[in-house]
């Protein structure tokens, strides 16, 4: 029998706020900060401390909700999710349960040729837990509560995905969206986005859902897709043998490449949710929502459409450019300064610049906020080429130097006289010299094989070190060849 996977994803995304969800502690990079240095009585859950909602976190949550086309609740309610664990200072996590911030949205994904619409069930705010570190010798566990209380947005999809490709497309599209909205860095290595997958199988064509498992704590796209592949295969094998799937919570062992059981349905936590009495219901007025609506930037799909229509780009190039919001912005800034057609700039960017950056292990953003090559300088280089001040090959070698030296094209040209030879006499003598040295080619041109002119042009370019303007050279070649035949 052929089995169809049915997958729903829960995505936990840290929100990029200055301070934590319910206290004034700074949100820091927990992979580098000294443990337990960004804590206070509130996020430590000390007796008598009380939470206060971080309005900025709500702003960011609303921005995501709007971008996903959700229905935003005029009143949502925080709730306590109760369980014991050392990384959870209060013994409960403040989350949202019955009345989430927003619900009923959609995310369009492009897993292949065809666009698919994945329904979003709900979007809610909650606080992150701390981190545990287990040591072998001596055998002990340490807890770092810097992360405790960091705002999290949980985005829950409907079980609308049916393949690894769709799951991957959903995860990457959502990550891109969060980056566009500037609510999350998208920095997967830092654990700012984490996944939980609900997976079940059913006979292809069936409409009823099978028994599902939940895989927790998937911290990378790779873990997400590999665990799903593994689980689909495992469940298919069991089902094909006529065995039932146990409803359970699974973990993912990255090294072994397999899932393992954490809790069965019977052992499942009873979180005993109830409304958080320390926080009044969260009211979102139409005015507040309108204010947030104005902060929602152009989203990837719309931007892609615009790049196609406004700059005449191909769909593929446009998709490449919108993969990161910063790339699309870079492109548009470069077009502006270059004065060249968008297609030209796109070719320079995706063809040349990306290649050079790749081989140097660099990114457009560079390191420490300092761009490797500002878009304006990149645009200026393209302008020099399009205005004919330098030729294409020279431009390309200049680009290499710009990246490696950090100097602008203008500076490099003035330093190394890399500019095009504009002196007509110098060019004409180079053309004449080429013709004299290649009598065979000249003869075949005159014999009617006019395409030879392209070869001759190449020769002139070679002898001038690429500094000749190809158009001018072609014109001179035509003139010289025409003159020769008359003589």
């Amino acid at each position, binding site marked *: 029998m052929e089995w169809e996977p049915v997958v729903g994803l829960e995505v936990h995304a840290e929100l990029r706020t200055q301070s934590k969800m319910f206290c004034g502690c700074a949100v820091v990079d927990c992979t580098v900060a000294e443990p337990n240095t960004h804590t206070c009585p509130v996020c430590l859950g*000390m007796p008598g401390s*009380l939470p206060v909602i971080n309005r900025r976190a709500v702003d960011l949550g609303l921005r995501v909700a709007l971008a996903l086309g959700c229905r935003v609740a005029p009143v949502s309610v925080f709730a306590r999710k109760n369980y014991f664990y050392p990384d959870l200072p209060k013994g409960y996590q403040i989350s949202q349960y019955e009345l989430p911030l927003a619900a009923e949205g959609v995310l369009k994904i492009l897993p292949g040729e065809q666009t698919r619409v994945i329904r979003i069930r709900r979007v809610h705010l909650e606080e992150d837990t701390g981190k545990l570190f287990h040591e072998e010798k001596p055998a002990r566990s340490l807890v770092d509560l810097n992360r405790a209380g960091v705002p999290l947005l949980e985005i829950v999809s409907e079980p609308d995905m049916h393949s690894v490709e769709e799951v991957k497309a959903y995860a990457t599209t959502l990550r891109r969206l969060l980056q566009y909205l500037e609510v999350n860095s998208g920095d997967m290595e830092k654990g700012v986005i984490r996944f939980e997958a609900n997976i079940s199988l059913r006979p292809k064509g069936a409409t009823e859902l099978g028994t599902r498992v939940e895989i927790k704590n998937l911290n990378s796209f790779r873990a997400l897709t590999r665990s799903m592949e593994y689980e689909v295969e495992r469940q298919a094998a069991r089902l094909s043998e006529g065995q039932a799937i146990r409803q359970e919570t699974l973990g993912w062992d990255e090294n072994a490449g397999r899932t393992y059981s954490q809790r069965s349905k019977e052992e499942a936590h009873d979180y005993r949710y109830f409304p958080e009495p320390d926080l009044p219901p969260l009211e979102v007025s139409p005015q507040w929502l309108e204010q947030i609506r104005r902060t929602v930037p152009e989203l990837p799909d719309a931007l892609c459409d615009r790049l196609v229509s406004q700059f005449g780009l191909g769909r593929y190039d446009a998709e490449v450019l919108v993969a990161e919001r910063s790339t699309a912005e870079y492109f548009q800034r470069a077009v502006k300064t270059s004065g060249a057609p968008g297609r030209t700039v796109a070719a320079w960017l995706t063809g040349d610049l990306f290649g050079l950056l790749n081989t140097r292990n660099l990114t457009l953003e560079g390191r420490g906020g300092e761009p490797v090559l500002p878009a304006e300088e990149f645009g200026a280089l393209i302008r020099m080429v399009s205005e004919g001040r330098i030729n294409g090959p020279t431009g390309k070698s200049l680009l290499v130097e710009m990246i490696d030296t950090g100097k602008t094209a203008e500076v490099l040209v003035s330093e190394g006289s890399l500019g095009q030879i504009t002196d007509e006499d110098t060019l004409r003598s180079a053309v004449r010299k080429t013709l004299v040295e290649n009598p065979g080619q000249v003869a075949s041109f005159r014999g009617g094989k006019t395409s030879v002119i392209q070869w001759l042009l190449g020769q002139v370019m070679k002898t001038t070190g690429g500094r000749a303007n190809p158009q001018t050279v072609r014109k001179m070649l035509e003139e010289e060849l025409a003159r020769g035949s008359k003589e």
Partner: protein
Amino acid sequence: MDPLDLSLSQTADALREGALSSRSLTETYARRAEKLDPILHAFLQLEVENALREAAAADERWAVSRKSGNAPGALNGIPIAVKDVLCVRGFRCTAGSRILEGFQPPYTATPVDRLQKSGALILGKTNTDEFAMGSSTENSAYGPTHNPWDVTRVPGGSSGGSAAAVAARMIPAALGSDTGGSIRQPAAYCGVVGLKPSYGRVSRYGLVAFGSSLDCVGTLTRTVEDAAFLLEIMAGYDECDSTSMPSPVPAYRKALLDGPDLRGVRIGIPKEYFLPGIQPDVDRLVREAFGKLQSLGAQLQEISLPSTEFALPVYYLIAPAEASANLARYDGVRFGVRREGDGLWETYNQTRGKGFGSEVKRRIMLGTYALSAGYYDAYYGQAQKVRTLIKAEFEKAFQEVDVIASPVTPATAFRLGEKVDDPLSMYMEDLLTLPASLAGIPGLSVPCGRDSIGLPVGLQLCGPFLGEEKILKVGWAFQQVTRWHLEAPNL
């Protein structure tokens, strides 16, 4: 002049006029507290030396102000006591529990902070039922407090330490907390004034949480004027407590200066509050008090609050449910006492098993059960619905009357040990104070006489939400024509 005979307000006047120094005032109270505490055990911590140092500094401020003309805070140099469920930097905060033995909070609760900013100095922390769960202060892990009127009896609870300390004149005033009657009931048992403000009127920041939707910080004082005095300073919005009310704080004390004239004041007497089992003395004295109010011009009318009987079951679902979550943080990981076991879960078991007393465990279990999957709707959910009903009944009643008057408790203080093995009968002590807690409305307990064996009886005055002025006015008027609040136990 014996400073012990002065009310808080009179003490403030004496200090301002220079008739009394903070140093001598504080010394007098401290010595008395030290002398009586071995008998009463009202305090869990007394910091006499520190208080005397602060008193000297307060005297210094008085001296400076007399030259400069800039008055210091209204409470400058006045010692007060704080129930040991409110965090005060520099003091331990145990909440009467072993699990917080030696815990030193690095912060001060907002209401305490406001009193300190006004110049008050903290003489000590008072005894409480563990995590404020109890009606007799017998649930304190550090031993019970005794009633100053009869040391074989309980002072009530859970603010029994504060009530006993004020009644025994070990302190001019003390802070308490009231979740279901924990200020009003001990105030009645000890013959002092207890004020539970409206929910959210005073910040809960720094108050060790028991039932978060019910917890209120309030006062135990000798006079109603003193309660108004302290409330005025403590009340008001606090950005650290999202449930605190932003409404402006009235000048409560000023409102009292109109004179004991209750003409035009409508007082409702809920018939449901006079239960068949009520102690005859209590019934008589409270009705006499009604007569006094009437003689001051108040109009009395019987009213009905039919949902009163449901207050007890509703309260004992909601408060323990919230408590079960509030007390989850005492896991031995970050603060308080940790008892190591073999592995994480055994450490939890040891820490919590040995750290909590039996009443706390009982309520954690009650609350956990009420919130469990499959039971939530029937218990917690249903309780919330009935709570809404109770609230609505009060709102309706307050369309007809300004204040609701009743006994605070159906009986006077019981004997130590009398009810410890009978939790249900202990819970019944809260019967008449629970409804106001559930409704979030203010309640005042005012001494209105003593029973045949000399134990104090309390009159409860409840007002509409944020209507503290109304009950303070009635309570103050009552004290203008009675002398119960001037009597002190013989110790």
